[in-house]
């Protein structure tokens, strides 16, 4: 009998498939206790569940490859092979499925350069291994396969003990190696891009700055928005720098142009918000590239190209892209949707009334990190461009986009407040968060601010970044007054603006 046949027979006899399915169900399905959000630190979030069919196939794959590995590596009988198969499966369940570890949390791994990288890999693995050794998880991962394999013991007592000790050692080693491998991949994927142009090999073949910048603009726009149509629209809509500068003093024409940009950005933000809400299944590679590209844009040294005029065009395209992205994201998390049956059932169990159903939007740590990078990038590009023109950026090409910027930042601010207030309602309903002293609008606002500070410090950082950017945009008395009275911005936005500037 070959190893695969014996493995299939074993599985059939023990009905392991049923056992695995029940374990999977308990891990992947939301239980009564965890259905209501409970966030204790900034890294917690809400994640998409992997497809059960794929998970079962993965378990099968792990079992098969683990068994073959045991059979090839250690010719010590069936018991060791079964141990290796179970170890691989248990490692997959414990390290990938449990605690939503299938989601790559880029916030866990800082970016490293040069020599410290290997040292950090070593330190990180050491820390995480010690942490996992202390938890029951590791003991479970080692003992479970060993106990299972005891059913297949052959020979006398002494040989069984020998094999058992070998099985424990092998199980530990395999777990350790799989863990190292998994952590290293996550660490590598979470590294920021040092140079954006290194991503795009075609750029090295292009000689003129114009083409390089245009290509880079297209690439970044497409990467950030994940939509080539919107990217193309942004690029074709942005006027060349010289023309924009020529229009600055032509008050009517310039204000019309500014208004057009404002309307256009809002339209695109609306489009992109639907894209966010529909939760598209992007490839992991595209998600990773987007988050790392945004991280690169938010770095202080971000600059590309030599021609000032082209660079301004590049900056304004990227700025508009970021405005669309930020505004779209803000809209996406602030739009209320009808709760599904599942959600309604939980609301009935909690103390919430039907009228106060919270929005059915959930943010993962990566989504929060990405939006933080986007706001930081706006700030960086603004400060970068003001250095570039030497005059105030007020007179530069980016001035066209100021209403769009303010509107987008306001949308994001509003969205975060909306998201957090709905989260607060849920937590108050379940008794996880107590309302502080204070009544009326001010009391509610104080409670919300306290909730954001306690439960979502990362969102609080984004709000602070929004406010800083707004202050930078509207810096200067004349400019500040102009934007307070601007007819483009709606009243809500003006109120928000006044609250920041006062």
């Amino acid at each position: 009998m070959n190893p695969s046949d014996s493995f299939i027979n074993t599985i059939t006899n023990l009905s392991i498939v049923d056992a695995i399915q029940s374990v999977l169900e308990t891990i992947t399905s939301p239980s009564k206790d965890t259905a209501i959000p409970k966030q204790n630190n900034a890294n917690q979030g809400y994640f998409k569940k992997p497809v059960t069919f794929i998970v079962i196939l993965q378990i099968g794959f792990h079992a098969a490859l683990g068994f073959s590995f045991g059979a090839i590596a250690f010719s010590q009988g069936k018991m060791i092979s079964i141990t290796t198969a179970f170890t691989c499966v248990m490692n997959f369940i414990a390290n990938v499925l449990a605690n939503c570890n299938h989601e790559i949390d880029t916030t866990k791994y800082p970016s490293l350069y040069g020599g410290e990288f290997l040292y950090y890999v070593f330190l990180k693995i050491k820390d995480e291994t010690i942490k996992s050794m202390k938890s029951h998880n590791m003991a479970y991962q080692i003992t479970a396969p060993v106990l299972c394999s005891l059913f297949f013991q052959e020979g006398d007592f002494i040989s069984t003990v020998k094999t058992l000790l070998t099985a424990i050692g092998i199980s530990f080693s395999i777990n350790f190696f799989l863990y190292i491998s998994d952590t290293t991949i996550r660490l590598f994927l979470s590294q920021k891009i040092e140079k954006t142009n290194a991503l795009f090999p075609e750029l090295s073949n292009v000689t003129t700055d114009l083409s390089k910048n245009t290509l880079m603009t297209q690439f970044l726009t497409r990467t950030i928005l994940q939509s080539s149509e919107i990217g193309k629209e942004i690029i074709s809509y942005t006027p060349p720098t010289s023309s924009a500068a020529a229009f600055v003093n032509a008050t009517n024409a310039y204000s019309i142009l500014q208004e057009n940009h404002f309307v256009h950005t809002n339209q695109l933000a609306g489009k992109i918000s639907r894209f966010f809400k529909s939760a598209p299944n992007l490839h992991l590679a595209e998600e990773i590239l987007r988050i790392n590209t945004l991280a690169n844009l938010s770095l202080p040294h971000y600059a590309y190209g030599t021609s000032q005029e082209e660079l301004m065009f590049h900056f304004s395209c990227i700025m508009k892209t970021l405005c669309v992205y930020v505004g779209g994201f803000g809209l996406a998390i602030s739009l209320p949707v009808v709760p599904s049956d599942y959600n309604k059932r939980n609301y009935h169990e909690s103390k919430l009334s039907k009228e106060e159903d919270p929005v059915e939007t959930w943010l993962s740590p990566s989504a929060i990190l990405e939006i933080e990078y986007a706001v930081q990038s706006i700030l960086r590009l603004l400060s970068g461009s003001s250095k570039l023109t030497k005059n105030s950026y007020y007179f530069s090409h980016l001035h066209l986009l100021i209403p769009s910027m303010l509107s987008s930042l306001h949308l994001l601010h509003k969205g975060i407040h909306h998201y957090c207030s709905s989260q607060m309602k849920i937590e108050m309903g379940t008794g996880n968060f107590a309302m502080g002293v204070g009544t009326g609008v001010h009391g509610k606002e104080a409670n919300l601010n306290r909730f954001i500070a306690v439960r979502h410090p990362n969102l609080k950082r984004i709000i602070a970044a929004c406010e800083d950017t707004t202050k930078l945009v509207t810096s200067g008395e004349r400019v500040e007054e102009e934007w307070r009275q601007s007819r483009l911005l709606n009243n809500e936005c003006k109120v928000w603006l006044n609250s920041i500037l006062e």
Partner: protein
Amino acid sequence: MTTRQQKLNQTLFRTSPYQAKQSTHLQFESRPVMEKNLLIDTHRSTLATSTSASDVSITSLIYFYRRVLSALFMLLSLLTIAPTCCVVVLAALSYMSCGHPAFVAIVTLLVTMFVRSQIVRYAPTKKQAVRALRASKIILPLLCVIASALICRLCVYVGVMNRKIGTSSKNLWSACQTGFYLGTLGLFLNLLVLFRFVGPLAVGECFTSALEQFLSSYII
């Protein structure tokens, strides 16, 4: 529009005299004309088509696979090289200490620990102690190894210890074999981890959008 304003335009907005002059006329242009002049730039529209969605997808895939594969390659190469490196280091120590590498290792460990504790004890401030410890991180063990090897060699010359001769070439070859064996085994296990993130069975995600469907999401 006067020449003065043209000059002002030129200075403020770094435009050419021609553009500064042009801007005076543009004030009176109607909106469609302006859109024709500014908003719809056919040259850029054409250029915009040059980067297609597939280009970015390919770039993202290249970027992604490069990172994943380099992570796995790093581990595999470490596994393959580690036994050989160990044997080489042991052989070097053995040569330096006339066949007593264990003695060198123990002495190095003890001396390093002793010196570090002395640094902490006698440093005037805590900050200076940390700085000194950081500075001596690599240098101190290295010096200890050399010193203990020399002491060992001296002991052998004096006659306190015996000279031992090892078969290093045989060890090296067996270490290479062990390295290859471990590398092959590591490849097997790496494949398991690789297919968690890559391929049709991938479950790894980095979800960056706002999730709407609560049914397909769950909470930790």
